[in-house]
């Protein structure tokens, strides 16, 4: 029975997860063509060996060369990684105090607080990003409010800038940061801190030597959970970002849907994947190690 339980999901993932990557790789080595499907060569097995040889002979790395020659692409990769890094730090800055305060809250409140953090996560991602359009627009609520308080004299352009993208990312990914940090702090015994203070530590050193080492696994997991998907983010830059916000997810989307250049879109995807392989592997190792330690 265990064999069957392994085999069915295994085969499913092989066909619908691994094989598609082989196809993406293959198309990234193909040439753009005005046909259906819009690339050449297509594999034609009816010609036998000759067909197969001709097929492999026609593949080349032209698209990857093209990616290095056009400024747009490497700038987009660089700025995606940069935006993801900055947003991860910002999300950590916002999320850590919340997770910390939750773990200090009276026991009876904690399930309700957890619920309040999880609830937005279940609500549509798209709707949560959309909500910010009305807030950040030139005639939006934030500008109206700041004009009313006299903080600014005329509306600030926030929507369609990278700032709006940062706000959107921090907002939508916040639960992914709070939950793992809270999970690791929740298990902490508060008497540890009291002991540290009794032994003469200041609050800050007690935090640094007691709380932080306990929170670290959660912080690391949270950072990966925010960073990795943000690099390839599409919805937030396309709704909140402007023309100067370059993100590779958006470039890939436009290459595919607007330019219909499937080979270049595939090459963009392959490079994005190569960039993300390192953090993904590190994240998996971190998770496995935590599981083994935590039991």
């Amino acid at each position, binding site marked *: *029975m265990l064999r069957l339980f392994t085999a069915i999901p295994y085969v499913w993932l092989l066909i619908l*997860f691994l094989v*598609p990557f082989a196809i993406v790789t293959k198309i990234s080595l193909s040439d753009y063509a005005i046909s259906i499907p819009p690339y050449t060569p297509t594999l034609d097995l009816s010609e036998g060996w000759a067909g197969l040889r001709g097929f492999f002979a026609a593949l080349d790395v032209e698209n990857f060369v093209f990616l290095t020659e056009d400024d747009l692409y490497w700038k987009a990769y660089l700025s995606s990684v940069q935006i993801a890094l900055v947003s991860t730090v910002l999300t950590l800055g916002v999320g850590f105090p919340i997770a*910390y*305060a939750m773990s200090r809250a009276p026991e009876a409140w904690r399930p309700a607080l957890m619920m309040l953090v999880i609830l937005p996560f*279940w609500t549509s991602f798209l709707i949560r990003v959309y909500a910010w359009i009305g*807030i950040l627009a030139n005639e939006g609520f934030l500008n109206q409010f700041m004009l009313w308080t006299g903080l600014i004299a005329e509306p600030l352009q926030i929507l369609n800038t990278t700032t709006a993208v940062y706000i959107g990312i921090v907002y939508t990914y916040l639960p992914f940061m709070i939950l793992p940090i809270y999970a690791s702090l929740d298990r902490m015994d508060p008497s540890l801190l009291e002991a540290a203070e009794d032994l003469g530590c200041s609050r800050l050193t007690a935090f640094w030597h007691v709380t932080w080492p306990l929170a670290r696994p959660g912080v690391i997991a949270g950072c990966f*959970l925010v960073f990795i998907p943000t690099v390839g983010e599409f919805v937030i830059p396309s*709704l909140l970002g402007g023309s100067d916000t370059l993100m590779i997810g958006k470039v890939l989307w436009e290459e595919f849907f607007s330019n219909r250049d499937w080979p270049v879109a595939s090459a963009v995807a392959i490079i994005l994947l190569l960039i993300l392989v390192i953090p993904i592997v590190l994240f998996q190792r971190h998770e496995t190690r935590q599981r083994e330690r935590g039991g």
Partner: protein
Amino acid sequence: MRGLSAFNIVSLTLGFAFLYIPMVILVVYSFNESKLVTVWAGFSTKWYGEVVRNEAFLDAAWVTVRVAFFSATVATVLGTMAAYAMMRRGAFVGRTLFSGMIYAPLVMPEVITGLSLLLLFIAIGLDRGVLTIVLAHTTFAMCYVSVVVSSRLVSFDRSLEEAALDLGCTPLQAFTSVTLPIIAPAVIAGWLLAFTLSLDDLVIASFTAGPSATTLPIKIFSSVRLGVSPEINALSTIIIGIVTVGVLVASVLSKRQITRRQREAVDG
């Protein structure tokens, strides 16, 4: 227990204000009379009427719910199998690849998953429609299910299964009559997660949907690109309402089950 310091209270207040104010504004302004979303012109429910009369929204909503139901169901079966196999089997050929394929989709950028699945469907000549979206959603949702179910299996007492086997159960009987009832809450949670992920997905659905099948997020995205509209606010409020009620009901039910089990444990 020292109680909350002022700093902690401030972090919680600001944090939850940040999380909830945007949604509150969205909901409040869905009852706005004016077509201009940011100017209040009196209370009205007319935009809800518009949503309910909008055939395109209703069609898309029906497609979305069907896709979510089928993909969540298949994903739950596959994900539970995968979690059980990973937990109960020691080393086997290809184990690393298997666990890699279960974890990778969790963090894979959606644009890559979407693109690669679309290219697969085209390569094998499958027409894009409801079926292709279901296949795509099942694939990434089963990985989430498997993670949720594994976390329950970790704390599962294996001797119960062994007892069933000793008493003459086949492995399948032991699984269905002993293991499955115990891990059922995690399996249900996995199904709910898979269902919501599917309802929510825009990117993968955009790649794998054909002209014959448009899901609600695709519909919302294309109208949101043109700017904020009170109709979308109303639609969003309906969705937020359904999700909130669903999550609250699920959490009350699971809490009741936990208390019942604790009581049984005390009585027994």
